[in-house]
């Protein structure tokens, strides 16, 4: 994967670099491109009226929550918005910046225009292109008005003096012209454009999902250069491995993964804002997103997101792995899995995987359990965990971690059993798959 991406980037660099030099294109950081004045964007001059400034800051606080700025710009146990969180990726480790208004170490010297340039164009105050680990590829859809409101909220925070170390980006990704090239190919600035054929609610939902919520930053496949596949146009929520983690963000456009076309709107909104519903439970990075961001959605915005998500057209089905003929060895494997299930899982998930919907997820017919790849189910067994504490579900029930209790082959056996019992018909899980998922547990 890594070698492939390296070869790909070098090949691309060579070919496109030559083409662009011939075409006289300037790859160096330059003045803002014409997209800095998007259609429908406001110029956003600050008003002196304190009442209105306060209401704008309040709106900005909400929008910053929806955009989950804090989720990345806060280190574990650190000061909110002071940055310092490490984001591991195949290209190196990025370290988030301090976006409190401290003048030396934060963005105290920035103005609305600087902030807009970062959000909309992916460029820093000094004109340097930013790495798309900062999701400007999605944030570019945010309106100028909302950008200004978020900025006014950030500027109203208490400044935190915190100098964060620079990221550790590997060669050749630390070579800036390559980043400019990447942007040239994969990034097109542009505020969300209303689809006049759809309702206002649908458009609001689309704006939230595509822009502020930046769902496709995770729920999309990325090519070896880290660009969202299909970003140039079309749907981008087809699911993908989350960079630098052992989690798979399921497709939001597939009924066999996390598509919600068959769900009542209320249940979609409930899952987004409380972290649990009778049909699914959030875990891993999605639980983080619910706690940090989605639980703060207004009822209207949660419903708008649900309307949009529910409307997403079903993507082409991925070919399912052919049903395996289970040989004697496989049957023995499943029998041992069944015994482990009996001992460790049955009490909560029930003798037939029926669970207790909304509390302990049913496993029979559970899409998260039979999904390919099985990484999320493996991860859940290894690390356990609780859905987030939210105002709608403040005292969640949880799952014990089994990394300390079960060996890799035992995890593989019990999950293989769960994936083939009670009508589930997914592939068996191997010890190696479990072993790979142990990365980052200590």
């Amino acid at each position, binding site marked *: 994967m890594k070698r492939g991406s390296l070869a790909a980037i070098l090949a691309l660099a060579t070919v496109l670099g030559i083409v662009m030099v011939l075409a006289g294109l300037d790859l160096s950081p330059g003045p803002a491109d014409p997209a800095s004045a998007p259609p429908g964007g406001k110029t956003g001059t600050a008003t002196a009226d304190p009442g209105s400034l306060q209401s704008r800051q309040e709106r900005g606080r909400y929008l910053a929550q929806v955009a989950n700025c804090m989720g990345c710009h806060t280190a574990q*146990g650190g000061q909110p918005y002071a940055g310092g969180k490490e984001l591991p990726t195949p290209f190196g480790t990025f370290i988030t910046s301090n976006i409190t208004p401290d003048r030396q170490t934060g963005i105290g010297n920035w103005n609305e225009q600087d902030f807009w340039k970062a959000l909309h164009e992916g460029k820093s105050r000094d004109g340097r292109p930013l790495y798309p680990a900062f999701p400007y590829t999605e944030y570019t859809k945010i309106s100028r008005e909302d950008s200004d409101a978020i900025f006014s909220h950030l500027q109203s925070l208490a400044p935190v003096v915190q100098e964060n170390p620079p990221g550790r980006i590997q060669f050749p990704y630390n070579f800036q012209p390559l980043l400019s090239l990447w942007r040239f190919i994969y990034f097109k600035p542009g505020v969300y454009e209303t689809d006049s054929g759809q309702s206002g609610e649908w458009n609001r939902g689309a704006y939230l999902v595509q822009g502020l919520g930046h769902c496709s930053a995770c729920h999309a496949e990325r090519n070896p250069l880290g660009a969202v596949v299909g970003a140039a146009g079309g749907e981008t929520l087809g699911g993908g491995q989350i960079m630098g983690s052992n989690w798979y963000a399921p497709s939001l456009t597939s009924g066999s993964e996390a598509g919600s076309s068959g769900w009542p709107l209320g249940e979609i909104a409930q899952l987004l804002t409380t972290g649990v519903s009778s049909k699914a439970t959030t875990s891993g990075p999605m639980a*983080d997103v619910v706690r940090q961001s989605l639980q703060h959605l207004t009822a209207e915005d949660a419903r708008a997101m649900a309307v949009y998500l529910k409307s997403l057209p079903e993507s082409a089905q991925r070919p399912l792995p052919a049903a395996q003929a289970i040989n004697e060895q496989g049957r023995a494997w499943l029998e041992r899995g069944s015994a482990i299930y009996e001992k460790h899982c049955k009490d*909560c998930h029930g003798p037939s995987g029926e*669970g207790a919907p909304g509390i302990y997820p049913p496993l029979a017919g559970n899409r998260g359990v039979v999904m390919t790849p099985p990484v999320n189910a493996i991860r859940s067994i290894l*690390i*356990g965990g609780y859905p987030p*504490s939210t105002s709608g579900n403040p005292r969640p029930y*949880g799952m014990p*971690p089994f990394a300390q209790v079960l060996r890799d082959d035992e995890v593989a056996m019990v999950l293989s059993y769960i994936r083939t019992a009670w009508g589930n018909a997914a592939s068996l899980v191997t010890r190696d798959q479990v072993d790979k998922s142990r990365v980052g547990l200590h």
Partner: protein
Amino acid sequence: MEGMKTFFLMMAICSAALAFGARVAVAAPVDVPDTMAERVKPCAACHGLESAAGRDGFYPRLAGKPKGYLFNQLRDFRDGRRYYRPMALLLENLSDEYLMEMASHFADLKQPYPPPEPANLTPGEAALARRLIENGDPARNIPACVECHGKALMGTPPYIPGLLGLPRMYMVAQFGAWRSGGLLRGRKANCMSEIGKQLTAEESNALAAWLASRPMPEHDFSAAPLAAQMAQRCGDLVRSGAER
């Protein structure tokens, strides 16, 4: 054609099974008690009623420890101030209020203590341990254990844990962690990491063995409040996370 038939047959079986699964889930979901005991079941995978050595470490019992102490540990694990990744992952998305409820649950849990361990100490080692416990070593700025952990060594609620009823190996490991500032604790300078760094291996081993060999007090003990100068010196440990 044959493949097609098999496919449809499979589909039919799967849908039937799914429908069945869904019906079962609606008809007879697992009955889940609405209690804290049910909610802390994930803890029990490692933390049994008694302390136990596990595959990757030592899992101390939680029953009866002071509420504020437990809350601070939960919060510190979650926020990375006390480093142990499995605990951080488990608690990642839980609120302070909920962690406090969990702490409260375990603090109120009654569980008899195990019998004392055999001492295996030379008279010199026992005397060394007793001296440190009662007097500390003022020359090295080591306070007496009883100053914070209580005359009966049963802790000073709500933040200071007791030292009796703990296995020797657990205490040896904790002394090591305070001293090295390693995986578990003592990353930040505070009173207990300073004390841990002052203690020699001989001293901490003697303390652990002596403490583990002491029986629990037979009747109730009343813990005096923490002396002001100790509260100040150990401010980082005796305040709740929110106040830090």
